[in-house]
């Protein structure tokens, strides 16, 4: 396995792109990444997407998108792990290039979610859970997270307002990101007064959907070492782990086993521990998921994720800044694209190109993308070379 670098990144703003088709969103992100990498072509394209078959009535995105961007003939495919599809595309590109079988690859995450009615979209999202044993009972994706959150509050004694800092932090950072879905800070009062979706989860605990696409060009590290005028970012650790699809099948529904395992493997590959991570692009689809991820990745003791947030350690000035460009909560959660936004944002931070949201001196970033309610978790450690 040879070292792998991320040579170029591209993204479109997360939003309601009524004037663009899915293939155009993907193309825009890909062209931006190619221009950023200053290359014209790659040998393979890996697409992260969850719902095009359901919402766009369009599967087979690998051939479709590679043809659209002028790469007809190359190796191309879709990879899918619900909300974890995006990072899975990077993982697949890294394995392909790292193995030496493919000399350069593009990973793109894309999702088009706002053409359909909220109920169609909600039903499609629910397919991330177990169809026969969860979704059939009318439990939504938010509902599953609400079940986890209520039990977490019961076990560890947290109040709903204790989760406010997660949402406030993400929106504060999203306000500094021109590609974020929401670019206004929120107050604790706004958090507390938000309408309930599935108690105890209210609107300000939940990330918004959106249309989006983000892409990265992946090449062998040795090929580009010393050639780039910017800090070169390498993939120092990459791991995928899985858990039961259904929340009810887990011995401890309050612990993200797959998040813990994939982070541990990625840390080991990179030769680091959580103490050395400068920032964490976290999967804050819901505030409870942010708390559980901090615990699983070794930043907080079990049951103590909210304490880290309450003490201000998750802000850009804290010991472990999270969601530095808005996270899922403010940048938005275009499901299958989300994992690639996390990667693109981590590269922005490591290159020193994050603008007013820049974490000074950031050298090591962790990205973690979660599919379903923790059933597939993909962790990447990115470092400046």
């Amino acid at each position, binding site marked *: 396995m040879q070292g792998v670098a991320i040579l170029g990144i591209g993204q479109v703003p997360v939003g309601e792109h009524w004037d663009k088709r899915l293939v155009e969103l993907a193309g825009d992100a890909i062209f931006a990444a190619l221009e950023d990498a200053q290359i014209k072509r790659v040998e393979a394209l890996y697409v992260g997407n969850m719902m095009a078959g359901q919402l766009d009535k369009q599967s087979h995105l690998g051939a479709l998108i590679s043809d659209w961007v002028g790469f007809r003939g190359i190796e191309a495919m879709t990879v899918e792990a619900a909300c974890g599809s995006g990072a899975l595309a990077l993982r697949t590109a890294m394995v392909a290039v790292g193995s030496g079988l493919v000399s350069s690859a593009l990973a793109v995450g894309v999702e088009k979610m706002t053409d359909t009615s909220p109920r169609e979209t*909600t039903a499609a999202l629910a397919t991330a859970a177990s169809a026969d044993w969860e979704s059939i009972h*009318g439990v939504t994706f938010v509902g599953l997270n609400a079940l986890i959150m209520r039990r977490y509050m019961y076990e560890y004694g947290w109040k709903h307002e204790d989760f406010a800092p997660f949402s406030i932090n993400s929106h504060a950072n999203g306000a500094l990101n021109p590609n974020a879905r929401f670019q206004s800070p929120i107050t604790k009062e706004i958090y507390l007064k938000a309408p309930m979706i599935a108690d105890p989860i209210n609107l300000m605990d939940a990330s918004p959907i959106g249309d989006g696409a983000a892409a990265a060009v992946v090449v062998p590290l040795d090929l580009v070492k010393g050639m780039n005028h910017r800090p070169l970012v390498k993939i120092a650790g990459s791991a995928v782990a899985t858990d039961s699809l259904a929340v009810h099948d887990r011995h401890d*529904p309050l612990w993200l086993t797959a998040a813990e395992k994939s982070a541990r493997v990625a840390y080991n590959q990179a030769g680091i521990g959580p103490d050395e991570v400068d920032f964490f692009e976290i999967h804050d689809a819901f505030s409870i998921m942010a708390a559980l991820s901090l615990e699983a990745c070794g930043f907080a003791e079990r049951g103590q994720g909210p304490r880290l947030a309450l003490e201000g350690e998750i802000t850009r000035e804290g010991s472990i800044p999270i969601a530095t460009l808005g996270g899922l909560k403010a940048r938005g959660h275009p499901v299958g694209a989300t994992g690639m936004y996390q990667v693109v944002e981590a590269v922005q931070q490591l290159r020193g190109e994050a603008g007013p949201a820049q974490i000074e001196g950031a050298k090591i970033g962790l990205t973690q993308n979660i599919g379903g309610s923790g059933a597939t978790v993909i962790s990447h450690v990115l470092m400046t070379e």
Partner: protein
Amino acid sequence: MDIPRHWRLNKQRYALTGEVCPHCQAKIFPPRDVCPECGGEAKTEFGFSGKGEIYSYTNIYNAPEGYEENIPYTVALVKLEEGPMITAQLTDLGDQPLEIGMPVEMITRKIRSDGDERGLLIYGYKFRPLVSA
């Protein structure tokens, strides 16, 4: 129309028929043929009592397609007394406040109707507060 898809789960939906592992005695629901505890083959049928307690619950205000008529409805994780946990709706709640740990029992109810008024009616398990102590 998904008739076979629902029909083949009738034993589970109507009677909570799961499995017991012949190697480690773990009770398994839903049936999965490979024991999640010991990895051994487990195909021996086992009927669950339908008694359990609430592990967690939530009220759904934004429902997916096909569930709108019951908004808001309550979904719970129910810890069955034989061990496994399952996801199901709660029903017959009346005015009594819900709490974690509350004893509940299984009852068969309509879960949803598939399509228009001529569509398939899907029945299955829900849970209600324990009537007979």
